[in-house]
């Protein structure tokens, strides 16, 4: 287990996606460890999300004991939302990726996407204590929904930045090993330049744009793949979220594992927009 978290730490610190480890388009991200990690971290955020239903019951705001199952449902649904979306979209993501001429192999594409999902749920799980803290004091359903949207949006944007920067690093041609420079003794009287020495020793994070020396065309290809992936994953993810409702659990509605499959996410958006603009 400690080994798993060590590898998660390596991913978050950018060691796994550092340019020297992305040689030849390989992504060293063992799926047998990172898929369970995605489940575990997603369940952690789900655990905090489910507190709301529990706190409503414990504060006697609702008398229906069945609503406590909402906590269990959240623990299952959160990782399911991310991973099922990946299962549905992966074939099309891979095919498009190959079509554009990206040098990522089938497994490397899968590993990269699982890595992005893990980053997403890891950030969400780390923001979980904030969600849990607000749950202790909030009965307002709308506030909890909005807070969840904001926290998951932050996590989502971080994961998107991770994906984009990793794709840009992958677009770079493999760099030859840097020759070792002879050591030059530093003048004793010189003031140490903290920034220069820090930059020399620090490893860049996974969200940093590195000077890859890649022509604009190569980066453009990476950005195109990124945009198409975001579009497909985002649309399917939105609909998956709609199908897996309810997440937070409306206190005015009885508990149900899944709501009846009426309408879809996009229909609901249009209906809400019409309702807002008073269009019949």
């Amino acid at each position, binding site marked *: 287990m400690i080994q798993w978290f060590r590898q998660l730490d390596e991913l978050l610190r950018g060691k796994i996606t550092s340019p020297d480890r992305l040689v030849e388009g390989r992504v060293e991200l063992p799926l047998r460890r990172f898929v369970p990690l995605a489940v575990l971290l997603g369940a952690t955020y789900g655990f905090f999300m489910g507190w709301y239903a529990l706190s409503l019951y414990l504060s006697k705001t609702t008398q229906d004991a069945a609503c406590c199952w909402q906590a269990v449902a959240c623990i299952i649904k959160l990782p399911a939302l991310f991973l099922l979306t990946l299962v549905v979209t992966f074939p099309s993501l891979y095919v498009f990726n190959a079509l554009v001429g990206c040098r990522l192999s089938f497994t490397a594409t899968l590993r990269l996407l699982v890595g992005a999902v893990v980053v997403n749920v890891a*950030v969400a799980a780390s923001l979980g204590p*904030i969600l849990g803290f607000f749950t202790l004091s909030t009965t307002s359903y709308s506030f909890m929904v909005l807070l969840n949207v904001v926290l998951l949006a932050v996590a989502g944007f971080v994961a998107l930045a991770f994906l984009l920067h990793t794709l840009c690093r992958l677009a770079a041609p493999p760099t030859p090993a840097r020759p070792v420079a002879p050591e030059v003794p530093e003048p004793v009287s010189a003031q140490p330049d903290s920034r220069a020495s820090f930059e020399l020793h620090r490893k*860049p994070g996974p969200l940093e744009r590195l000077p890859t020396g890649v022509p604009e065309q190569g980066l453009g290809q990476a950005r195109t793949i990124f945009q198409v992936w975001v579009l497909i994953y985002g649309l399917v993810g939105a609909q998956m979220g709609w199908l897996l409702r309810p997440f937070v659990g409306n206190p005015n509605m009885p508990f149900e594992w899944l709501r009846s499959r009426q309408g879809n996410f996009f229909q609901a958006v249009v209906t809400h927009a019409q309702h807002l603009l008073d269009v019949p």
Partner: protein
Amino acid sequence: MIASISAMRAAIFQADRFLRGAGPFAPGASAARPAWWLPLMVVAFGPIYGACMGSFQLDSSDRLFLMLYGALKVPFLLFATTLVCLPGFFVLNTLLGLRDDFRDVLQAIVAGQAGLSIVLASLAPLTRFWYFSSSAYRAALLFNVAMFTVATLAGQFVMLRYYRELMRRHRHHRLMLGAWVILYAFVGIQMAWMLRPFVGSPDMPVSFFRQEPFSNAYVVVARLFFGG
């Protein structure tokens, strides 16, 4: 007696060096002092203001408890808010490649809180003087808000002194400083709301927490503005 006086003199001497950012409290000299000195300053100076804040209308022995509660609540407010925000902040720092600096980041955060606590302690006589001059509860609340605002700004100033060195190392520290301020303010406001009463309304019984279910400060404010 002599021992406690010399301990107090030592504490004031260290606080003076901390406020000036000198000696072991210089931003780059974290190795020159034990790590627990800065949290100790929060624990030592925070309760001074907390007790003073709770000393509003001391007309019964019951209300003395408000001074004790206030003394406990101020350091608790600062530490608990930090604890809630820290996991998310830690992961975001790691993702931006700033993990190696996190020890220094943590030092900057605690230094900001130590600065806030010392400034609050120095403002305690002003608050007590205000209580002498006016017995209006609402005015006392507003005065305390003003004192906390001043102390928070001073705390930010101290924190920035430590962060400046970090920002020289990497520009992403500037982004993370902004993220910390937003996170801390968002959680801190709610934490303070939950830990009420601090001043203690004269019309309400003395208690550690308000004798009502916890509520959400943002929902209350939104309802005040928009009704509902």
